[in-house]
């Protein structure tokens, strides 16, 4: 996995030419790859070549990616179950998007910084953040309780698109710090969705990224839906083609192909850290589950569409490949499942035992330097709470 892709694709603008191809065609393609849709592992587990992106993975790396995929899916399923059982208020599932997240997440180097939406539990896993970290937010106990700088993974952002500007600003800062231009250079990845692509903030992020030549990868997971709205309500054109208008490359990658997501993201991150500026990556994928646990997708999409995408499952194809290539044996698969059991078990315990925040936390950290109004309210609240003491309230 240490290998860098061999060549930088020539120019982003060239990538926008073939807009007319039907999305379905693209996503369904077999072993003869379309250079405008990067795929390195076909849905039936065949390794395919791409002129611009060649990566050699060791067997261990292949196995490692498989393990990641399985674990984050299991964590996700467990989280949905925890919500159904009343331990979480809501959950935003990543099912179907494991390859996009593990591929891009593993492509990050330690020094790189990631700005997620609310769905990047797989990337969070890759960054080494404790997989229980987001559950406080979804339980209603906090707004995200991990240290963004510890693992270079920012808090989740719920306001659609807002984090892309933070990512670009952070990347500008890398530039001002002089931390670009070498192999040790730093880069940023900003996640956003197909729906987010319509937001003014995402546009402005692209404008700033382009103008300041910021070391940032704008990574769009096009999972075909923004809640109930299919991507056609956002654009008539593939999203990656937006890049050309800002003067940087845009690439569409098979978002259900972990190898391709890895290769394309690594390539883009390395370009960024070497001072070659931003890239827009569109990972073409599918949200298999509901938008969140409060959503009912049967109201707006039919089962056959979901079935079609099941055929492109991001995990099954890796398993097929590992089996066919004899890279992994039954013992390995069993061990992965056991790991997943253990990790999800720990998650379950953690979430069920999660303590509620104390009322006083309401008044904490409104200001770094404090403020008399909060102090007064905190004091009032203390007295008020105390006034119920002994009333059994």
């Amino acid at each position, binding site marked *: 996995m240490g290998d860098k892709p061999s060549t930088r694709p020539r120019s982003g603008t060239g990538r926008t030419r073939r807009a007319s191809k039907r999305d379905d065609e693209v996503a369904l393609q077999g072993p003869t790859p379309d250079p405008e849709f990067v795929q390195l592992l076909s849905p039936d587990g065949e390794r395919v070549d791409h002129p611009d992106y060649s990566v050699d993975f060791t067997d261990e790396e292949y196995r490692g990616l498989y393990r990641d995929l399985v674990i984050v899916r299991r964590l996700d399923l467990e989280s949905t179950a925890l919500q159904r059982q009343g331990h979480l*208020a*809501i959950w935003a599932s990543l099912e179907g998007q494991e390859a996009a997240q593990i591929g891009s997440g593993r492509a990050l180097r330690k020094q790189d910084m990631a700005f997620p939406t*609310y769905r990047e539990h797989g990337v969070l896993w890759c960054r080494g953040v404790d997989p229980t970290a987001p559950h*406080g*937010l*979804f*339980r*209603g*106990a*906090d*707004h995200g309780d991990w240290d963004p700088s510890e693992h270079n993974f920012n808090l989740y952002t*719920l*306001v*659609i698109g807002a984090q892309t500007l933070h990512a670009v600003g952070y990347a500008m800062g890398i530039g001002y710090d002089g931390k670009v231009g070498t192999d040790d250079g730093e880069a940023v990845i900003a996640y956003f969705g197909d*729906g*987010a692509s*319509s*937001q*003014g*903030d995402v546009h402005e992020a692209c404008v700033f990224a382009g103008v300041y030549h910021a070391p940032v990868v704008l990574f769009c997971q096009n999972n075909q839906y*923004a*809640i*109930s*709205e299919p991507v056609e*309500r*956002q654009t008539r054109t593939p999203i990656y083609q937006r890049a050309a208008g800002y003067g940087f490359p845009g690439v569409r990658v098979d978002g259900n192909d972990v190898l391709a997501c890895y290769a394309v993201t690594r390539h883009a991150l390395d370009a960024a850290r070497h001072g070659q500026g931003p890239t827009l990556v569109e990972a073409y994928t599918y949200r298999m589950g509901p938008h969140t646990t*409060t*959503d009912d997708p049967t*109201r*707006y999409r039919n089962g056959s569409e979901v079935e079609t995408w099941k055929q492109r499952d991001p995990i099954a194809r890796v398993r097929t490949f590992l089996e066919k290539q004899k890279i992994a044996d039954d013992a390995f698969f069993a061990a992965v499942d056991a790991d997943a059991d253990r990790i999800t078990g720990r998650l379950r315990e953690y979430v069920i035992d999660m303590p*509620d*925040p104390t*009322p006083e*936390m*309401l*008044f904490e950290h*409104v200001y770094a330097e404090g403020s008399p*109004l*909060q102090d007064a*309210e905190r004091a009032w*609240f203390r007295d*008020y709470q105390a*006034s*119920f003491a002994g009333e059994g*309230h």
Partner: protein
Amino acid sequence: MAKQQIPLTGAQQLTIGKALNLGLRRALEDDPKVLLMGEDVGRLGGVFRITDGLQKDFGEDRVLDSPLAESGIVGTAIGLAMRGYRPVCEMQFDGFSYPAFDQVTNQLAKMHYRSRGRITLPVVIRIPYGGGIGSVEHHSESPETYYAHTAGLKVVTPATPRDAYFMVQQAVRCDDPVVFLEPKARYYEKGEVDLDAPVASAEPLFASRVFRAGTDCTVVGYGPTIRVLRESADAAAEDGRSLELVDLRSLSPLDLDPVYESVRRTGRLVVVHEAPTNLGPSAEIAARVTSECFYSLEAPVQRVGGFNTPYPASKLEEHFLPDLDRVLDAVDRTFAY
């Protein structure tokens, strides 16, 4: 939901959510220029199902699933209104209305004034607002100050199914831009609505209403806090205190005459809302009532609101939101003078 299945007639027990849905349906029926726009309002019927079934019955050209862009939704609604339409925009949640802030405050609110009356923009911005639904951040805010402070906008909020049904229709018929705040935590509260009553029979849209008479202390609220007011009055009655309750219904313009009248009798006023108190609506109400009823007030106006913090994680919201105890505590305070 097929059209014929709904008995759109007679007195019905409806939730606020359903009353809004039927009110919007009436509006679409009554005027072909009425459009609904917003994220997920069509096929899905909105995340709260307020527009449920409307796209199916009125078509994609009347009920639009908009791109995910709030400024775009309000901005294009302005253009549609210039073209003669009456767009009703949904902001999915309070905390997601801010990307549209420039279009709402600089464009929508000012167009009639700047055009010297030549352009009217009958646009309704529906915003589910307020907390108490156990949701994640940005889903529980009370942005009424931002909108009520903006001249050129009108801001209303229903608290009962009946008001929901009529007020949304009145808002659609209003030639001024109306920010229509829906108390989302109350969407499932039920009450009777006479669906045969014409809109014209409803109280004026911008009038407040004394909804329980009392003698000892006046308590004013709106939207989500009306239930809290009711509970408070019940509890106070047990203690032998008679509260007079006012539902403001309109936050801009404010209709304070009934409040003045009440305070002149009771001598005491408590104002309750979920918005943070600092520059919350209670600030304006306290200032005006004190000015109008200077010699009648036995105690300073007490304000019960959200704390002046960002909206907390939902496990803390019960402490943040005004409840019966906080209201009664404030009532007590007025008697300490």
